[in-house]
């Protein structure tokens, strides 16, 4: 397999070439060296090739360090090169390994790195270049000049690609790219023959190894260029045919900046926006997106009657003030921070309570619209107790919470340390990976083992960044400090527990004691101050390398991603400089990651996709739009509600899902709305809401305690069965598993299990028909509530009795004994009685008693699809009900059918 197994080909993308701190100026003055393929076309040149600038990129370019070749961690044929390069020392060492014969300084032509790739010597990878080619000459010249390594890698300050953007009018247009590298010393070189090229959507544009570009079908994408640790992108557009547009694309006011920026791109691509979605479509869409809740029939009617031009804006504001919004937004923040009860097992007083506390801590802040950076700060800079609080006091406070099962007091605390107590978030490498994904939308894990294939991060960058996570100690058992230990001893003495080992048994006893109101010891997150070694002493990072690293810090500094090193001198908590950088106005990731995620919640796709992968090779489909939202989000003090309002009020968000001739193929420019399957929690909530009686249906925005969006953590495996809160459905519909540090932990795909569930799961039948359901409320009207309850109880008792008797009979049969007549009679009698009661309860009453079937059908539509039915839909439903054996059965059938429509399960 080619190296590309580790490369993503993005379907979407776009924009700015940005390399840390580099402008586009200065290229004109830079002296440019000509291309290596020209310079080394003839052998015997005096020039000495540079290991970093020429040899290493060449090895990458001809494929030597690919993962199927010598880049494999096992190496290949005895030679291992660093995957994707940029580990100059390791590669140089590998090439010059004594006795390997790879480099023969005496007789250069005998070197294996020349004889192998030319296939003169049997080579598993076949011929990579010909003898006397420029590649051969270049490598040979490097060898004859001593095969020197790079002393200190020179900084690449700019990778300039010309043309900087491409627009193609025709299929199969051709052009060539020219790539110039500009180095820190001001020198420049045309490095086109040494680059790797990639098209993010080969259906739109293809690029060959030499940077030769061929246009493809309609659409837009990027070409990505890699050289050294530089990544540059070239936006490519192939606009749709203009004649498909029936009107000017800028036919709306575009007073909202979102609409203007989206409009700019649409115009460039010859895409015409779809119409404005009608009122009912908008109401359903926005209610689900903001509050995770279906509008009630009453709401739909009122909204249609409201003639005010501001009614949409007002609805958005209303929804943002509901508890349902708070629950849904809290669930989202629990997703990205990883509130997973399975991973909180180390909390001796119960992972479920901890998970609930985590949820409630965030919920409290969403309720008050605390700024996003403050919420993140409360998590990132958390420790279990303040500096004034003693271990004893901390334990006493926590014990009280456990006794009272209180999450209130926990939510009132300033910080939320459980993030650092997750089992899967303990060593510094995983913490660095989690942190980057959770808060910066970056996937840096590739760089844990090798140069990141589509970003600038080297292994060194990763290692230096991960040092920020070395000062956080999760003290599960015995605390480290002497005072804390003394406190713990005091607590243990007060408890009726024996033994001294803090093993599982003891943990259980402690948890029980806590529930009974005693003060018990608690695990805690502590911060270790970095110890800066004397100048004389060498730093010993190897001391704390490896898993679960904690204890004294021997690092003197760490490096922020894409920034300078930060000294640990005079720093008490190394997370502080990290957090300061995160929330700094100019941080290139923090705000972008958040606004991109929120955008994706409203559109189904992000401006960057995958939404949590903001790497350099994966540009935004609309960079000015992403930049506007991120900049304004920071300007507005990370006001989460501002962002929701800004997006939801845009014409772009309120566009119909119905495509027009020009835009039906568009999936990345927001020309029309894309139908999205409801997220798992909303599938469950919407089904329950749609099928429940009026008063419950109407309470959904306000009363959230029983909703799926109010579930704190996530459980899986065996524990799932205990999750009475619809764990089965939530897993089938792909709620976030919160265990991979990936937004793809949540799935919005469809599956057979889902449709089987919708059609025939006991949950669905139950919700439609249970005594408190809308169907019962409507078709069981003639039965008095009290009578109904009585009948339900009768039924239950009867079934129990029947069950007992049948078991008795089975037992007799099994032991081959005779079953007495009386028992058989009794069973028959009970069965009959059950049937009679059931029949009554089912509303086997006369259909005439119910006034207006049309109204009921309308009601069913409003509850599920949030719109009025058409006359033909009414007629079809009426004939269905007429053929049913009762009104109740008929309505249950209609409700089942509507819950099974695509229109129901999709937010459109």
């Amino acid at each position, binding site marked *: 397999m080619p190296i*590309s197994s580790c490369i993503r*080909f993005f379907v979407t993308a776009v924009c700015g070439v940005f390399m840390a701190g580099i402008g586009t100026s200065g290229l004109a003055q830079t002296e440019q060296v000509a291309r290596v393929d020209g310079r080394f076309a003839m052998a015997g040149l005096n020039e000495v090739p540079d290991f970093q600038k020429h040899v290493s990129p060449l090895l990458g370019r001809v494929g030597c360090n*690919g993962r199927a070749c010598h880049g494999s961690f096992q190496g290949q044929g005895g030679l291992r090169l660093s995957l994707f390069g940029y580990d100059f020392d390791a590669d140089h060492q590998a090439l010059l390994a004594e006795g390997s014969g790879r480099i023969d300084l005496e007789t250069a032509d005998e070197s294996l790195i020349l004889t192998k790739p030319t296939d003169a010597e049997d080579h598993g990878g076949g011929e990579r270049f010909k003898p006397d080619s420029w590649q051969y000459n270049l490598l040979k010249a490097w060898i004859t000049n001593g095969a020197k390594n790079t002393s200190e890698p020179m900084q690449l300050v700019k990778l300039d690609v010309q043309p900087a953007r491409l627009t193609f009018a025709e299929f199969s247009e051709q052009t060539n790219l020219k790539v110039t590298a500009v180095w820190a010393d001001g020198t420049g070189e045309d490095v086109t023959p040494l680059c790797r090229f990639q098209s993010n959507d080969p259906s739109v544009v293809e690029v060959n190894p030499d940077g030769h570009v061929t246009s493809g079908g309609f659409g837009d994408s990027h070409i990505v260029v890699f050289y050294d640790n530089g990544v540059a992108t070239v936006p490519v557009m192939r606009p749709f045919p203009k004649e498909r547009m029936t009107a000017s694309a800028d036919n709306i006011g575009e007073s909202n900046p979102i609409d203007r920026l989206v409009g700019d791109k649409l115009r460039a691509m010859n895409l015409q926006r779809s119409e404005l979605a009608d009122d009912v479509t908008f109401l359903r869409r926005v209610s689900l997106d903001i509050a995770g809740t279906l509008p009630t029939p009453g709401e739909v009617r009122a909204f249609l009657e409201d003639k005010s031009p501001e009614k949409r804006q007002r609805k958005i504001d209303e929804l943002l003030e509901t508890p349902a919004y708070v629950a849904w937004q809290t669930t989202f923040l629990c997703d990205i921070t990883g509130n997973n009860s399975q991973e909180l097992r180390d909390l001796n007083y119960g992972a479920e309570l901890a998970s609930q506390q985590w949820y409630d801590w965030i919920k409290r802040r969403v309720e008050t619209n605390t700024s996003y950076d403050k919420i993140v700060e409360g998590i990132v800079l958390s420790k279990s107790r303040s500096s004034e609080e003693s271990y004893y006091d901390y334990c006493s406070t926590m014990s009280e919470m456990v006794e009272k099962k209180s999450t209130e007091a926990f939510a009132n605390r300033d910080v939320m340390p459980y993030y650092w107590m997750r089992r899967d978030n303990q060593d510094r490498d995983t913490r660095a990976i989690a942190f980057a994904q959770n808060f910066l939308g970056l996937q840096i894990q590739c760089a844990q083992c090798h140069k990141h294939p589509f970003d600038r991060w080297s292994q060194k960058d990763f290692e230096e960044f991960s040092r920020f996570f070395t000062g956080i100690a999760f003290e599960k058992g015995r605390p480290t400090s002497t005072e804390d230990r003394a406190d713990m001893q005091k607590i243990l003495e007060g408890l009726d527990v024996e033994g001294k080992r803090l093993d599982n048994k003891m943990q259980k006893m402690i948890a029980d004691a806590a529930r009974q109101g005693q003060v018990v010891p608690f695990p805690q997150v502590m911060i270790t101050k970095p110890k800066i070694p004397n100048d004389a002493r060498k730093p010993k990072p190897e001391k704390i390398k490896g898993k679960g690293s904690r204890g004294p810090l021997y690092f003197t500094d760490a490096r922020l991603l894409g920034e300078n090193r930060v000294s640990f001198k005079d720093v008490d908590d190394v997370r502080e400089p990290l957090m300061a950088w995160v929330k700094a106005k100019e941080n290139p990731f923090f705000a972008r990651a958040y606004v991109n995620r929120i955008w994706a919640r409203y559109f189904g796709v992000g401006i960057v996709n995958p939404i949590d992968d903001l790497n350099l090779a994966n540009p935004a489909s609309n960079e000015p739009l992403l930049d506007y939202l991120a900049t304004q989000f920071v300007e507005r003090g990370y006001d989460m509600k501002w962002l929701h309002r800004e997006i939801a009020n845009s014409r772009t968000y309120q566009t119909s899902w119905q495509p027009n001739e020009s835009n039906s193929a568009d999936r990345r420019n927001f020309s029309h709305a894309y139908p999205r399957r409801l997220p798992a929690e909303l599938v469950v909530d919407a089904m329950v809401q749609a099928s429940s009686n009026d008063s419950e249906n109407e309470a959904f925005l306000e009363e959230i305690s029983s909703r799926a969006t109010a579930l704190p953590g996530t459980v899986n495996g065996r524990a799932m069965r205990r999750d009475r809160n619809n764990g*089965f459905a939530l897993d089938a519909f792909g709620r976030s598993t919160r265990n*991979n540090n990936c937004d793809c932990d949540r799935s919005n795909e469809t*599956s057979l299990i889902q*449709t089987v*569930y919708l059609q025939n799961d006991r949950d669905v039948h139950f919700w439609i028909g249970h005594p408190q359901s809308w169907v019962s409320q409507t078709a069981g009207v003639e039965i008095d509530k009290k009578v109904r309850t009585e009948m339900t109880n009768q039924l239950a008792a009867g079934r129990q009795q029947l069950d007992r008797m049948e078991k008795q009979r089975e037992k007799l049969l099994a032991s081959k004994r005779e079953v007495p007549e009386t028992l058989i009679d009794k069973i028959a009698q009970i069965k009959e009685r059950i049937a009679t009661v059931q029949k009554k309860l089912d509303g086997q009453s006369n259909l005439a008693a119910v006034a207006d079937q049309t109204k009921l059908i309308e009601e069913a539509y409003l509850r599920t699809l949030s719109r009025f039915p058409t006359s033909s839909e009414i007629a079809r439903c009426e004939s269905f009900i007429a053929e049913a054996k009762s009104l109740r059965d008929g309505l249950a059938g209609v409700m089942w059918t509507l819950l099974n429509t695509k229109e129901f399960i999709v937010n459109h």
Partner: protein
Amino acid sequence: MAIHRQCNGFTRREAIRVGAIGATGLSLGGFLKLSHAGEVADDAKTRNAIFIELPGGPSHLDTFDLKPDAPSEIRGKFSPIKTKVAGVEICEHMPKLAEQTDKFTIIRGVSHSLGAHPLGQKFLFTGNRPTPALDYPSYGSVAAKELKTPVDIPGYVAIPRASQGPGYLGVKYSPLATNEVPTKGRPFNVRGISLAGGITLAEIDRRKKLLDDLDQTFASIERENELLDGLDAFSQKAYKMITSKRTREAFDVSLEAESYRSQFAEDSFSQSCLLATRLIESGVRFVTLNLGGWDTHNDNFTKLKEDLLPKLDNGLAALFNGLHQKGLLESTTVFVTGEFGRTPKINDKSSDGGRDHYPRCMFMLMGGGAVRGGQVIGASDATGAGPANEGYKPEDVAATFYQAIGIDPKKEYQTPTNRPVMVVREGEVINDLLI
């Protein structure tokens, strides 16, 4: 990335061209239609599989790789017995399996380096070494994608559920989980399959007709839209399955003849094995089941002798024999594995002795289908501390398993982020294992 194409002559161009035709070209609906068409053209090369997980990590030294000549602190308490195949010996506490060794192969000297349960299981139950960057699909999910299934039958069933998910293939390749294990003598209800809430087939049918008439809102864009097309296709399949007599009966083990049923013991593992054979007979292509409890740090010998080995012996022997009786052994590959072996040296954590996690050396079983039975391949060294020679990687066995059920292990998929990944990334097919 074009340069890297040359690395092994691989080109993505063709695949990309197909993709470029548009969403309809390779839509889920299209995929399902293809697989429906496959039902008609079902051929003799039909390959099914049963995958049996032994989570916890069974000791190789006390089961299928005994070392009677090793020192006592390694050898353990069990003796080998002869089996149906001359020269092949297994532990004395599996006499029934000893009668079935002609039907499967013992693979010894499989070796890897992941000694923790979750990681080891991820590795061994997907065939790919786990990385934090990518979630690999379970064997069954790959099979669900590749093997054609009759339209009214679920392709992949897990009893009661699978430890590994569909990974990057997505939830559409999740198994139908029974959620429960059949209990002898009791009707077995499978969520979603058994009619619930007192509803009748006739009523489901009536409702479905109403649904077909009413569900028209997106008709104009449905075929162009992968989500809507997929919902539609899955909805049709769900309906066919729910209303299918053969699907409902597939899960009803009480319909098996008493003479057949009685060879399966009453415990849940044997009953799962019984259900698995019935499901395969009904057209299910892949069944995953498990027998756990192998994490014998303490009381290794008691636990094995009194609980685990009898269960494995009863269930697996009946499974192989049952498949044989039904004439399904030739078309059904059975693969049995834990996540690692256990330490050669017996620990003293308990009076009975225990063994700890040991990924460097383990055993696996594979039989039926295209697998050549009645042999031992590979070997461990004198103390079971590692492979005797080069040994096998879990990926090699994984590649062979896929090969046996007609799936090319080198086939390349695209992840949701369009990253190309082979079904098995590192393994080489072990030809000795196949016919």
